[in-house]
């Protein structure tokens, strides 16, 4: 994997405008931001041609820091806004930055329908298992039994497997890794950006200040170590007995298929109409 110097990352940031950032010390969001920028740099994408769209939440603050066309939209609606941008200018590279609550609770409907259409969006979902910005309420990705400020007796909700949700809805490229595996994350985001269709990269993130503290997960380094020790690549998992896989974070690319992409389908429909124009 190509590494780029720190200086070059700064070149992609609005460092003179919006820093310091809002994220807490030990938060994984910066690692994901770095991976996104490195993947974009590796692909030599024209930044005028990139639109980064986000919803509301800690992770959704990302667009304000980067020097692209940026749209910090409404809670849950990033994918709906992104759909408008992409459908009007299919030539643009549209990246959606979202969180577990933003994408799968309030924005669940938009998430599954964009996946179903196989619209060419690159969705980077930062899953920190909690609503961080509002102070630690449980999300659809908070593990069963965990503590949040609104589950003082433990979470009775089963949680989503977000990658399975995307696959079930029709996403054609779905991958997951953790913030600890930063290089793998960069690679997955790069592949997602290259994929023509709806792609999801679920980045498991550490929220030591809220989720970690409520659930006694230790400090930020401890949570990073947990990502390292408690996750396994899909390939390795396939060779293990189920009891050794249970409770582990599966890392890798779950699905990668080239299927009819939505803006292409729309263009084809228009092309078929042109000979009959003036009808």
């Amino acid at each position, binding site marked *: 994997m190509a590494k780029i110097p720190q200086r070059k990352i700064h070149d992609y940031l609005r460092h003179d405008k919006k820093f310091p950032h809002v994220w807490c010390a030990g938060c994984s969001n910066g690692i994901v931001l770095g991976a996104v920028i490195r993947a974009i740099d590796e692909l030599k994408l024209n930044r*005028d041609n990139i639109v980064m769209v986000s919803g509301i939440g800690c992770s959704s603050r990302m667009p304000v820091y980067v020097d692209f066309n940026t749209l*910090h939209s409404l809670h849950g609606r990033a994918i709906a806004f992104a759909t408008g941008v992409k459908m009007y200018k299919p030539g643009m590279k549209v990246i959606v930055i979202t969180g577990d609550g933003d994408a799968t609770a309030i924005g669940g409907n938009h998430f599954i329908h964009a996946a179903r259409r196989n619209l060419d969006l690159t969705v980077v979902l930062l899953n920190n298992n909690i609503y961080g910005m509002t102070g630690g309420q449980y999300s659809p990705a908070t593990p069963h039994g965990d503590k949040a400020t609104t589950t003082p007796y433990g979470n009775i909700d089963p949680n989503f497997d977000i990658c399975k949700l995307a696959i079930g809805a029709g996403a054609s490229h779905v991958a997951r890794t953790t913030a600890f595996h930063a290089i793998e994350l960069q690679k997955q985001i790069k592949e997602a950006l290259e994929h023509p269709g709806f792609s999801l990269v679920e980045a498991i993130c550490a929220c030591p200040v809220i989720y970690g503290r409520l659930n006694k997960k230790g400090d930020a380094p401890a949570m990073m170590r947990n990502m390292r020790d408690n996750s396994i690549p899909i390939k390795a998992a396939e060779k293990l007995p189920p009891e050794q896989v249970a409770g582990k974070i599966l890392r890798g690319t779950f699905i990668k298929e080239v299927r009819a992409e939505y803006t292409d389908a729309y263009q084809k429909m228009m092309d078929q109409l042109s000979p009959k*124009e003036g009808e």
Partner: protein
Amino acid sequence: MTKEKATSKKTEKVEAIVEKKVTKAVIMQGNEAVAKGALAAGCDFFAGYPITPSTEVAEILSNELPKIGGTFIQMEDEIASMCAIIGASLAGAKALTATSGPGFSLMQEAIGFAKITETPTVVVNVQRMGPSTGMPTSPGQGDIMQSRWGSHGDAPAIVLYPDSVKEAFQLTIRAFNLAEKYRSCVVLLMDEVLGHMREAVTLPDLSTVRVINRIKPTVPPQWYKHYDENQKYLSPIASFGEGYRFHVTGLTHDDHGFPTNKPNEAAKMMERLNKKIKHNIRDLVQIETEHMHEAKVAVFAAGIMGRASKEAVKMARAEGLKVGLLRPLTIWPFPDDAVTKMLKDVDAVVVPELNEGQLFHELERLVRERKDGSLHRLNRNDGTVITPAEILTKIKEVYNG
């Protein structure tokens, strides 16, 4: 395909769709006139969700937009529809959605987003009887206040209200023009009766239609401010992909578009949102008057009730009564000056509405300030229209004091 070539080709195609209707009168439905008006105004993006009684707008545009290189998408709900048209507009589209009361309620948060980010968008609300699911195929005028105050926070609104199929065509074009000029979300309120009504119309020649497009920035990107203060707050607007790489947020922002918590910058942003409407009232407000110069009693009504009132006024005048009509084509901003003058000039005003008195409250507000005229409400909230004969009865009751 270059953009210019595509544009000229598009114009020809729009003419093929709209202009063939010009030479003679045709039967056209209100919702069809909205779709045709949108095309005439240069609309090239529609996102929507089916809902009675607005669905024909979506059906017609799903048929026409792909033919002219425009985009039609049926979204998963009305929230997504509103968000998608904002996204498309930021990328440069002239974007429309159409809905009815329940969908309009769902769109409110995003309508606020379009207003605070000053993103040109047009929303058609073909009102039906509410509240809630109400009576989907029956008229009601319950969304007059929702179109003004529906979204949280305190931002002004531009809302137009036609009374005929032809005016639906004209005001749809005007809605796009005002959205582009004032960089805001403009609402076209319709009545169910008008949306579904067919009428003989002769549409204006497309070449006579005045289309306003947003001003594009001419400064280099490093000098660009997404919310510039000059030109009565009607500042240029760049689109995504044009090299300006600006930031858009629903958070309170500075003039570059970056979030701010500073009271002075927040106040400046709010002042900008309000002043661009207040400073341009004359351009925004449109009214129609009939026989007001000699009226003793006036009828004030909008949309389908404006039309019924016109007939009632005609009937009253045939009986020798001095009655006039004031019909607002723009209901927000409210035509304060014209209404204040009316209240001063006449002895009494009758306000027929298909709600419990939403426009009536605005007249009460002005009466409190002026202490002239006396106000009489005439309300119905049962899914049917108040007939001219019923308005006439009320006029006579008021006229004879």
